[in-house]
Every structure is written in structure tokens, then in C-alpha cells.
């Protein structure tokens, strides 16, 4: 726990310094260049690319969470139960459709830029959140459900005070998985001119400059690690009642 928090902090500081002063790290990337290529990508600031990248992932994950959790709640109510198979199929379809295909199909409608990327990430990230929310809601024991009804909670109170809090750690795990997948997948958004860290990777591939590719990949990797461990810590916080068994 302590070590986890410390290494998270270390990665965060390292990433911050790199994004603020990438030129300090030129020596590190020079060995990857050939024929005196630039070692650090300067077309756009790495900091801006990172912030845009994060914003797109955050927006897609947030939208995906709202829709997926809402859907999971809906289909686990008595009135919505018949829609369970249908919504499962939809969420599955979102995942089986490759993001690249979504981009290709969305560009003619939405144009170039962030919009098609958002759509692709949103669709791709729905399934893990939806399935985890379903699993979390289903894991609330019948005894506890019965007790919640027996104490006189209304349907809404039961959902907000018992079912969702108990499902929360599992739901958060789904959101974490979805966010991590999106973090990597967002790089392909740059093929349709979205401003993401994919830009440095594509530039590196076009110019055969491994240093650019490495920069993009390392930043994305560091972001994934930070997001993963932070969300994991939050999950643990919300499931603390399960631990500390005597």
C-alpha cells in the first residue's frame, strides 16, 4: 500500500518533469534517432497533447460510465428485466466493432477531429463497465435485499443506499479497465486528426524516428499506470468493509 503510493508518486513526478521540460531528456532519446533527427517531438507541445489525450479518454469514459451504469440499473429493475438480453447484445456489439472501423465509418458523418475518436472510445469502453455493473448489482445477497425491503426502504432508497454502494467496487473496476483500454486506443484517434499522444507515434512512424514513437508510447504507458493504480486505490477504499477480518 505504502510502496504502491510511493511508486505512483514517483511515476507522476517523473512524467510531470518530462512534460514540462522535455528538452532535459533529449540525451535519453538521441540513441534512438538516426542521421541527426530531432530527439524530442516539438511540432506540438507534449504537455498539450497529453492534456488533450486525457480529456478525450476522460470524456469517453465518463459518458460510457453514465450510459453503461444507467443501462445496468435499468435492466436489473423488475420493469426493465426483459431488456437485459437486448442491452447485453448491444454492449457486446460495441466491443466487437474495432475502434478503427468506427473511426472510418464515423468520419464521413462527424468529420475529422476529436468527435469520431470520442465515439469509438465510448462504444469500445461500454462493455466492461456494463458487465461489471451487472455483476456488482447481482452480487448483492438476497438476505441484504430482503433486509433493505424489510426495514422500509423505498425502491430508490434501496438502489442508492444499498445496491449501488455494494456494487461500487465492482463498478469502479469496470471503469478502470475501460479507462485503461481507452488510454491506449485513443492514440489511433490521431489518424483522423484528433489531438492525442498518437500524433507523436504517427510522426515517428512516418519519419522513421523511433525517438518520437518511444516518447508517445512511454507517456501513454505512464498515464495508464497512474490511472490504474489511482482508481485501484479508490476501489480499495470503497471496499474497506470487506477487509480487516479478525
Amino acid at each position, binding site marked *: 500500500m505504502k510502496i504502491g503510493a510511493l511508486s505512483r508518486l514517483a511515476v507522476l513526478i517523473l512524467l510531470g518533469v518530462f512534460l514540462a521540460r522535455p528538452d532535459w531528456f533529449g540525451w535519453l532519446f538521441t540513441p534512438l534517432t538516426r542521421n541527426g533527427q530531432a530527439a524530442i517531438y516539438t511540432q506540438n507541445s507534449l504537455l498539450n497533447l497529453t492534456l488533450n489525450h486525457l480529456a478525450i479518454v476522460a470524456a469517453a469514459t465518463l459518458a460510457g460510465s453514465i450510459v453503461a451504469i444507467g443501462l445496468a440499473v435499468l435492466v436489473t429493475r423488475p420493469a426493465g428485466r426483459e431488456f437485459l438480453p437486448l442491452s447485453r447484445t448491444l454492449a457486446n456489439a460495441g466491443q466487437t466493432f474495432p475502434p478503427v472501423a468506427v473511426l472510418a465509418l464515423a468520419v464521413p458523418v462527424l468529420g475529422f477531429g476529436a468527435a469520431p475518436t470520442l465515439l469509438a472510445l465510448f462504444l469500445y469502453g461500454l462493455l466492461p463497465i456494463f458487465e461489471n455493473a451487472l455483476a456488482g448489482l447481482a452480487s448483492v445477497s438476497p438476505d441484504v435485499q430482503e433486509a433493505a425491503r424489510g*426495514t422500509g426502504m423505498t425502491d430508490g432508497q434501496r438502489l442508492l443506499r444499498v445496491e449501488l454502494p455494494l456494487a461500487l467496487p465492482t463498478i469502479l473496476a469496470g471503469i478502470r479497465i475501460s479507462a485503461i483500454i481507452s488510454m491506449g486506443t485513443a492514440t489511433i484517434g490521431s489518424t483522423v486528426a484528433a489531438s492525442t499522444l498518437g500524433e507523436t507515434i504517427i510522426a515517428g512512424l512516418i519519419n522513421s524516428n523511433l525517438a518520437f514513437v518511444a516518447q508517445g508510447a512511454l507517456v501513454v504507458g505512464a498515464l495508464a499506470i497512474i490511472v490504474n493504480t489511482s482508481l485501484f486505490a479508490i476501489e480499495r477504499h470503497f471496499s474497506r*468493509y470487506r477487509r480487516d477480518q479478525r
Partner: protein
Amino acid sequence: MIEIEHLSKFFDETCVVDDVSMTIPGGALAVIVGTSGSGKTTLLRMINRLVEPSSGRILIDGKDISAIPPHELRRQIGYAIQGHGLFPHRTVGQNIATVPHLLGWDAAKVSARVEELLDLFQLDAAEFRDRYPSQLSGGQQQRVGVARALAAAPKLLLMDEPFGALDPIIRARAQEDLRQIQQRLGTTIVLVTHDMNEAIHLGDRIAVMDRAKLLQYDTPQEIVIRPATEFVGELLGSGERPFRLLSLQPLRPYIEPGEAPGAALDVDASLRDALEEALWSGRAAVPVRDGAGKTLGRVTLATAIRQAARPQ
């Protein structure tokens, strides 16, 4: 007072509760006993509308409960189930406070009530209040479950096999606690069990159910002396009937003046205790003392044996 009138419940085509009528006086402890699947839980759950009857009705203090919104009805009725159903993500204090919160009590009143209940169930507030259910033993969880059911001081308490998961010693203590709490608070209690001992020990009235039907609803004495059907007799266990009858009779009326050797019995014990004590220690009589330790007289083996015979 609870009046159950011609109550029936069908699940699909199957009749699970068949035309049950019974009246439970205010302040009484009624026990519903019967074999597995006889419809006890279903009958109980119709009283707080967790199950809606197919026909018939239930009146609580003269009011038809079908006219009360279910969630409001349930806030007036304590409900404790086997396996306790504590909310795992809430502390002991928060669990107990559930119904007072739903009723909108202010924080100070809720807090005082939680303390009072923890005290009543012999759980140290400083130690247990902020623990999660996973940090309690099974017996402690059970007590917290009952404390939660009693939190808003309901006039009516429903209990579905509340002591089923407890070991015999803890169970006996929990039953004693329940008896005392009921007498102190005047709560009407309906308790489901399939343990005839528990029914006779606790019940003012016993309802015997078999295959959806209410076979007999009577005082423990009547049930033991005059079982309505063969099934009720079987449930009592024919070999045990004299002992059950004795266990229903307190010592006090049978104390006679005189000396007796050996350890004394407490005056709150039953004739059954006296019989067992006399037989086991090979004595013809045992002395009886009151709570303060003063000897009141003795009870003879002959008296106990005479009282074990079926009354004519």
C-alpha cells in the same frame, strides 16, 4: 393486536398458505412452528407486505394493512431474519440506525438510541459501534440484526428463525434476552421456527403449520396436552411429552415446607429442571431458594412425577 382473516397465498397454482385465520393479542409472543416448506415464512412476510396475499386480509390494531403503503408499514414493524441480513458496507451503528434514519429522527436522538440498544444487547458501544459486520462473530451479528429490528421501538416485531445459526448456549441466552426485552417493552412478537423446544419455551401462543394449513393455534399447555392432530403430536415427539409438560410449569406452586439435601434450585426454574436434578443426583426432593439465596422449601420427586401425567 394482529388479526389474520382467511389468509391464502398461491404461487402460480400452488397453495402455500391455505385459509389461515388467527388472532395475536397485543404484547403476546406467538410462535409459528412447522416443517420445512409448510408456509411459515410466507405467512410471516404477508404481515409486513413483503408478500401480498392472494385472498384474505390482515388487520393490525384494527387497521387493514393493505391500505398502508408497504414502505411505511415496514418502518413500523421490526423484521429480523435468519442470517441477519446486515448491510456489509455499513458499520454496526449505521445498521442499527437504518429505520430511525428513514423515519427522519435527528442525529442526537439516533445516536442515543444506538447506544441504548448496544447496551441492551450487551455490546460495548465504544468497541462495536464503528465495526463492520464482517468484524463480528455470528452471535454478535445476530444480536445486531435484532437490535436493528428494534431500533425505532416498533410495537410489532417479526422474526424468521432468528436463532437458527447460533450454538445451543448462545441460543439459550438469546432466547432469554428476547423474553426479557419483550416483557420490558411490551412488544408483540411473531416468531417463526421449526424447533418445537424453542416454540414451547418462548411462545405464549403456538401456531402449528403443515402443508400450508394452520393445524392448531393454542397455548403451549393445550398443544402439549391436547394436540389437535396426529401430526401435531408427532411434532411434539411422543416420548417427550411429559417433559414438555413439566417444562411449562414453574416451581413456585409446588414448593412445600421441609428440608432437602444437596444443591438448591432457583425458584424461576421449571418442574422439569427439578425432575432432572432429583433423578440425576438420586434425591427424593430438592431444596428451592429465591433470587437472594433464601431457602423457600423443597420440591419432591413425587410431585414432579405426578404433574408429568396428562391432565384428565
